[in-house]
């Protein structure tokens, strides 16, 4: 518990970043994020973009699962709806990205509203299966509605451009992706403190009790689904301009599972945990790859064992994290922070 952190005005009580130290660190992080593309190479920049897009999508799922307690196995499908919406508007109608991405988000929101409707009646594992069917149905639509989605070959999209300035390199896309992601993270942080955010949490903790104190269950659950798929849709739209091609193979069940893993590893209901989870799930395999590269230098014939071993190590890491910290990476981080805020005066 921090001492001496008094709130003397309403504004300071409402501030998102509450202590000078937090504000300073956020400033440092922002500066680092802006400078990053000028020092990082192609490879790191690509990974950074990937992390930012996936984190945005995963945040959507965290709002649904972590905040509201509604499980979904169809998150990749919503990302796909947003991506296809954006790609169709951009490639067929030539709309600029600042229309096509929000439109893709809106489309995904609509899809989320429909898929979320059964959530009033069914819960838990049953809801998981219902959303799984949404995943399968949307995947089928992406593959077979050839006249719109381009079928198995998908759609190619020209780079985003604004006033003649083409966002055709990873570096330029980085700033678009970063700014959209940051804005949406701030929105989510504020959402949690709003009436709706508190209603989400109330529904998660005990839906009957929430209804008794006046939370409209149906509206709240549907809204959670809509917000969640909106985030996925926006992530899908960014994805389209990032990869410049969209095919059904990009939005399969495995991606839904990956989102689920990100949210669980990062920390359910934690906004910064979503970021940690995405970084963990994306970068640790790459770090292990670098590790096998080093090992290969000493033991060249072992690649056929080392490469598959990497997946085993990755799986073990996830299990170990969950055993030692079921609240995810966010909680580990909090513990480290607490330790250092008193260090070295704590026994």
């Amino acid at each position: 518990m921090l001492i001496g952190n008094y709130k003397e005005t309403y504004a300071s009580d409402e501030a998102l970043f509450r202590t000078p130290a937090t504000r300073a660190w956020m400033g440092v992080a922002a500066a680092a994020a802006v400078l990053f593309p000028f020092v990082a190479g192609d490879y790191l920049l690509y990974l950074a973009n990937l992390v930012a897009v996936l984190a945005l999508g995963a945040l959507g799922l965290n709002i649904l699962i972590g905040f509201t307690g509604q499980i979904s196995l169809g998150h990749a499908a919503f990302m796909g709806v947003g991506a296809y919406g954006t790609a169709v508007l951009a490639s067929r109608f030539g709309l600029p990205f600042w229309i096509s991405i929000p439109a893709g988000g809106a489309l995904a929101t609509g899809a989320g509203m429909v898929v979320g409707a059964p959530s009033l009646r069914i819960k838990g594992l049953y809801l998981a299966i219902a959303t799984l069917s949404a995943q399968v149905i949307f995947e089928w639509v992406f593959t077979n509605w050839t006249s719109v989605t381009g079928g198995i070959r998908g759609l190619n999209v020209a780079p985003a451009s604004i006033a003649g300035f083409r966002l055709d390199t990873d570096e330029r896309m980085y700033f678009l992706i970063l700014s959209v992601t940051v804005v949406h993270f701030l929105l989510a942080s504020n959402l949690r403190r709003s009436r709706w955010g508190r209603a989400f949490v109330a529904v998660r903790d005990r839906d009957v009790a929430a209804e008794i104190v006046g939370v409209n269950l149906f509206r709240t659950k549907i809204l959670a689904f809509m917000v969640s798929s909106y985030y996925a849709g926006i992530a899908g739209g960014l994805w389209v301009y990032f990869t410049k091609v969209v095919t059904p193979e990009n939005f399969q069940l495995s991606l839904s599972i990956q989102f689920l893993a990100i949210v669980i590893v990062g920390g359910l209901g934690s906004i910064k945990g979503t970021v940690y989870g995405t970084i963990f799930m994306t970068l640790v395999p790459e770090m292990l790859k670098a590790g096998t590269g080093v090992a290969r230098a000493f033991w060249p014939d072992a690649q056929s064992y080392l490469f598959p071993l990497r997946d085993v190590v990755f799986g073990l890491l996830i299990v170990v994290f969950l055993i030692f910290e079921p609240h995810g990476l966010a909680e580990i981080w909090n513990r480290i922070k607490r330790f250092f805020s008193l260090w070295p005066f704590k026994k």
Partner: protein
Amino acid sequence: MKHSIRRLALVFAVSLGLSPAARAADDVVTVGACQPITGRFAFAGVAINAGLQDYLNYANEKGLVPGKKFNYVYEDSGYDTDRAVACFKQIMAKHSPVIMYGESTGLGKAIAPELNSRYKVLYASASFSSELADPKSHPFSFISGPTYSDMFSVLLEYIARNKGATRPKVAFFYSDTEFGKDPIPYARKRAAELGIDVVAEIVTKAGAVDVTSEVLQLKKTNPDYVIFQGYIFSPIIEVIRATKDFGLKTRFMGTFWSMDKGIIDKLGQDADGYMGVMPYAYYYEDGAPGIAAMQAYNKKAHPDVKYQPNSYIQGWFTGMVYVEAVKRVVAAGKPVTGENLAAVLDTIKDWDTGGVTGKVTFVNHKAGVGRVYKANAAKGVFEPASDWIYAK
């Protein structure tokens, strides 16, 4: 004075550090590869990687391109497009190769915009998708063999040549994937041109195992031939067994991925009569100098290896094309760059690969030639059922 000495020393040190790399660029040709060594394509990725690596080593040993050494750098990309793109960018940034190899159709499509505008390296992949065989949209890519459409063309040509008194009846049996659907529109057109009736098109999930209703459909339409596309083993094995139980006389055909020896091992006696198209000769074939060289290299490098799968030969042949392209660029006295290598592809005409494939002519950045092989269950091998057939 002191400063200028220090600066001179610095310049000297920097030039010392850089000069090996600068010199290396002249006589070393770096080939990078993102191989699906793990993931669901690993069954082929490991062998493709070994084949490509072995051929480049072989070229170095034999000095196939005078004054040039090939340096092969590879990473695992796990058959995941995101990881593969990351791998591609990492290798490009770290090693700046002039030639790259990629794991999938997905990577080919995802990397295309940057390959065309920034990287400009010669690119081949494990994919036989006709989408990548388009010099207009993919000027730096080539298919190291025929596309799936070409493979269907070879099979249909074979059926047309061996028909009886009536019009042959064919069924297409394919999976609901990019891999399964790729050649189908072309195959329909080609069948009509050759006077072949397509009596059924059956679509399933990849790797489906419950095929009862599909087999009933085959029984109803009774085709002379069924061509599978988009599967490895399952459900080919189940379908063949089930139709045998029904007493159908239908003959079954596959394309590259379902033409490895493994399918004969799995089918056992039921393999007799199974046939399909192979772009390359098999490892155990005699009488082809190109294959004999491969066997000799393997005997030396991997003494305990008795058989190499068809994806190994795919990797080996891709290496042959890379080396041939470099050889032609060097012979023309041009620098070895991606642009020059891609330009030289179109000059490859009636190229003798020593029997590893038929004579190769690159048209639209693909080598549209293949041969029909038939399984011999007793010996457990595929045997040639036709000569090399050129796709139209």
